[in-house]
């Protein structure tokens, strides 16, 4: 099998090369993303420690395998026979006891981190309630009275705001199916289970602003890389951040077709918000947008095929309109259309700490995208919350 030894040798070589590249060139993004939490440090340490241990075992066993294939006939088999042995007691003992010992160490070494992550929570009131539902994150702050389930609760869709360097606790819930609250940069993940309110805690050791400054260049590159499609959610944010009055913006820039698509998205969005959460739409701008778009919808018939004629829709956009489930898929828009609709207005998005859903929750699982905003100080966060509160009151 000598020739085949080289074939199998490619495995350890390539594996070491790939993991080596992942470690040596973090900019490839093939390894753990930047960590910004304390528990993340222990998790990353364990990950690298296990990588080192398993790496040694991996390279050792693979090389042994290749070596055995390479020598092929074995020294003991000059007579064209295999070595007649049924095993070796001492070898068995060694390769049972040594791995057992190493595995035992791995088992014990990780217990403190698990304790920190799942037992030793900070004894503080939850900063927010994170309520997952198909397909969004509803973040609820207790508001000025410090109580949940009162009329002054502050509702923020898809954005969790926390102060930097403080161990905060959230209460994780879901209104419908299982979801999983995943903050990759903080190495935090926990399932949201119907019927349970799960305490999850973490600290963020870097502010969003710092993070964005460090990654300003990346953001531009990313935006171009996203393959011709982008999320409408992002556009809303872009408008929001540009502080362009939405009404005039839509009138000036959007074709009827795009308006219709936009409307269809927001209508489903709005519809799913439900009456209970109606006042929850946090920013005045967004409420206005929804109002405006509802108005547009009233005058545009989405099912009219003429609407989709003449514009260069990609397959995916067509499918969104054609789908029996209506505009719910219009969250994906072709970038060209967007640039048509928003000449000069679409700016690259800033990087954020993402919040992802990591448990399958239905067709829209992939778009349960949220973000974690880390404020520089508690005061800044309080001010932001006060602003949201005021907006919410005003839109009543």
């Amino acid at each position, binding site marked *: *099998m000598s020739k*085949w030894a080289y*074939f*199998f040798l490619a495995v350890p070589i*390539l*594996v070491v090369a790939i993991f080596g590249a*992942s470690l040596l060139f973090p900019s490839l*993004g093939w390894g753990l*993303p930047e960590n910004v939490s304390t528990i*993340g440090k222990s*998790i990353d340490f*364990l*990950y690298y420690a*296990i990588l080192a241990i398993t790496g040694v*075992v991996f390279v050792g066993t*693979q090389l042994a395998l290749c070596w*055995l*294939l390479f020598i092929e*006939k*074995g020294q003991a088999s000059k007579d064209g*026979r*295999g*070595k*007649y042995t049924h*095993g070796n007691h001492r070898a068995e003992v060694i390769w*049972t006891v040594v*791995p057992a010992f190493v595995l035992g160490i*791995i*088992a014990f070494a*990780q217990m403190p981190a698990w304790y920190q*992550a799942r*037992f030793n929570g900070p004894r503080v009131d939850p900063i927010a309630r994170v309520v997952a539902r198909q*397909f969004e994150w509803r973040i609820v702050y207790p508001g000025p009275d410090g109580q949940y389930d009162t009329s002054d609760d502050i509702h923020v869709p898809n954005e969790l705001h926390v102060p930097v360097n403080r161990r905060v606790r959230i209460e994780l819930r879901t209104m419908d*199916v*299982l979801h999983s609250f*995943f903050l*990759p940069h903080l190495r935090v993940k926990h399932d949201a*289970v*119907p019927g349970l309110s799960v305490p999850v805690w973490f600290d963020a050791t870097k502010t969003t602003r710092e993070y964005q400054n460090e990654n300003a260049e990346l*953001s531009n590159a990313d935006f171009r890389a*996203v393959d011709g*499609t*982008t999320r409408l959610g992002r556009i809303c944010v872009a408008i929001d951040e540009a502080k362009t009055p939405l009404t005039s913006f839509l009138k000036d820039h959007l074709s009827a077709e795009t308006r219709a698509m936009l409307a269809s998205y927001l209508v*489903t969005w709005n519809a*799913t918000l*439900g009456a209970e959460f109606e006042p929850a739409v946090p920013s005045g701008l967004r409420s206005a947008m929804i109002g405006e778009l509802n108005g547009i919808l009233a005058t545009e018939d989405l099912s009219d095929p003429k609407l989709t004629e003449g514009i260069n829709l990609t*397959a*995916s956009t067509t*499918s969104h309109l*054609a*789908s029996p489930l*209506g505009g719910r898929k219009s969250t994906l828009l072709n970038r060209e259309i967007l640039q048509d609709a928003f000449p000069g207005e679409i700016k690259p*998005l800033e990087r954020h700490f*993402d919040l*992802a859903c990591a448990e399958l929750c*239905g*067709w829209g*699982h*992939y778009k349960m*995208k949220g973000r974690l905003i880390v404020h520089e100080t508690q005061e800044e966060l309080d001010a932001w919350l006060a602003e949201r509160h005021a907006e919410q009151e005003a839109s009543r």
Partner: protein
Amino acid sequence: MSVAGSIDASGAHDDHHHAHELSFIQKYVFSTDHKIIGIQFMFSGLFWLMIGGLLALGVRWQLAYPFQTMPIVGPLLFGTEGGAISPEFYNMLFTMHASVMIFLVIIPFMVGAFANYLIPLQIGADDMAFPKLNMLSYWFMWPAFFCFALSFFVEGGAAQAGWTSYPPLSSLTWIDPVTKAGSSAPGAGPGQTLWLLGVTFAGVSSMMGSVNYMTTVINMRAPGMTMFRLPLSVWAILITATLQAFALPVLTAAGFLLLFDRTIGTQFFIPENLWVNGTLITGSGASPLLWQHLFWFYSHPAVYIMILPGMGIVSEIIACFARKPIFGYRPMVYSIAGIAGLGFVVWGHHMFISGMNPALGLTFMVTTIFIALPSAIKVFNWLGTLWGGNLHVSTPMLHAVGFVSLFIIGGLSGIFMAATPVDIYIHDTYFIVAHFHYVLAGGSLFSIFAGITYWFPKMFGRMLNDFWGKVHFAASFIFMNGTFFTMHQLGAAGMPRRLANPYDYDYLAHLLPMNQFMTWSAIGMGLAQFIFLANIFYSLFYGPKASRNPWHANSLEWLAPSPPGHGNFESVPVVYRGPHEYSSPLVKDIDYLPQWVAPADIAAFEAQAKLDQPATEPAPPEQPSGNDEHQA
């Protein structure tokens, strides 16, 4: 395809006995012959392997070219969607891919095809203990096939809740009764019900098989076949059958409960105060975690059901082609048993962050870490078997060695996930997907390839083409790694599994090119299987005739004619030694000493074997080129 006339090392010359003539239907369709049933399992497995592979390519297409028109098939399948896969269709693809592969391919292959074919032949029995039950176990697969196939055509399509089918996503229909639209999970309609029925039928089939296998191995061994003379493949299957017998009822029961939740309005898994399409339903206060416990109580053992027989197969093949006794036969048996035993107390490692008590997580962590130990022992013993061997290159051997190489990767990645803090981060990311594809696509699938190529001559009396066998191996091995290895990188980068479009997330957008590379590898892996199929179907009719014992192996199946007739052996074999007496010092001129040769007949056997060798072995397929000369 009778071997009458061929002189064989076995020294047995009589025509195999036909008790009575059977009609075609009795013989090949509703057969009670374990060999036919095994082959039936094998061909239906191969068929579903292709279906499962196509579903996987759909998944891969979406991950490489999200929401873009699929060439050729796109417009046909999703004309209204502009030829692109919709997110709900994507969920259906990965759900059904996994379900088909697990329930209709790998489990039936391991405990349907191989167990059936091998047990009686390797223990020296004429058939299973309960041949009718055995036949039923195959035919109970058909309702499962039917349910799975039909589910693609019902309203809302096939199941979309993942192969794990966690409630409440899987326990309610999620279709708005008024508008029929706005469904948050269109596949949770009749498709999900059919899924549950299909899994239940497959389970019934497995259960029938499992009872049969245990009984047969325990009761029907040939004279002299003590437990510790059983080939490791039989040991592995016996232990697997035991695993199944104890784990499967739990899944079946859970499946019925979920079915009741869906059909007759019980609320076993439906919690309180659930919002469904904007309306509040008051549940019973049950916990959806209950399903996870019940499901994994079966499905963790099930992952071993999918690998243990493969380990047995690989052990037999490595011993044979290294021309050496297996290194550490008993430790091998004990570690199979150890894996099976521990396999019952590790299910919670799928639930570390599910909301299960973290203290419980800790205990599951410890058991899980230690289940890596018997796996490691097995790897070391395979290496030990290769050491000092007189290795022969052959297609089965390459697949077996490939198995070891790939299983090492899958076993080691298990340790990352067993470490609870690390699992917080990598749970439900592509790291998990990498792990189980290394053990399942790398491990189980390669052991299936190894097993088919090894026993093909016995099954059909003809040799497979060795050259194309090797080409198939090399291509599969390369593309398999190309498809799955970088999933570790995706997982480390935090890419969750089951996202129809991961690139929406800023932190994942850069992973698109890597995914495209993996998709092209997957396409290569798919294409490579056509070589395999072509080889099988060509050799079935035109392959060179196989002798009784083309690999010069030791276990009892090689005593029977190729293919064995009804009743397997001409006369009841008697077993004198263990199954791996290769290069035994008791024989000088040949390097194997089969289990059935009586000590008094060794000299005669040896003389006969030497005589036969040139005659019965036209260009032995294990020696394709001059480099690899061996066998005196």
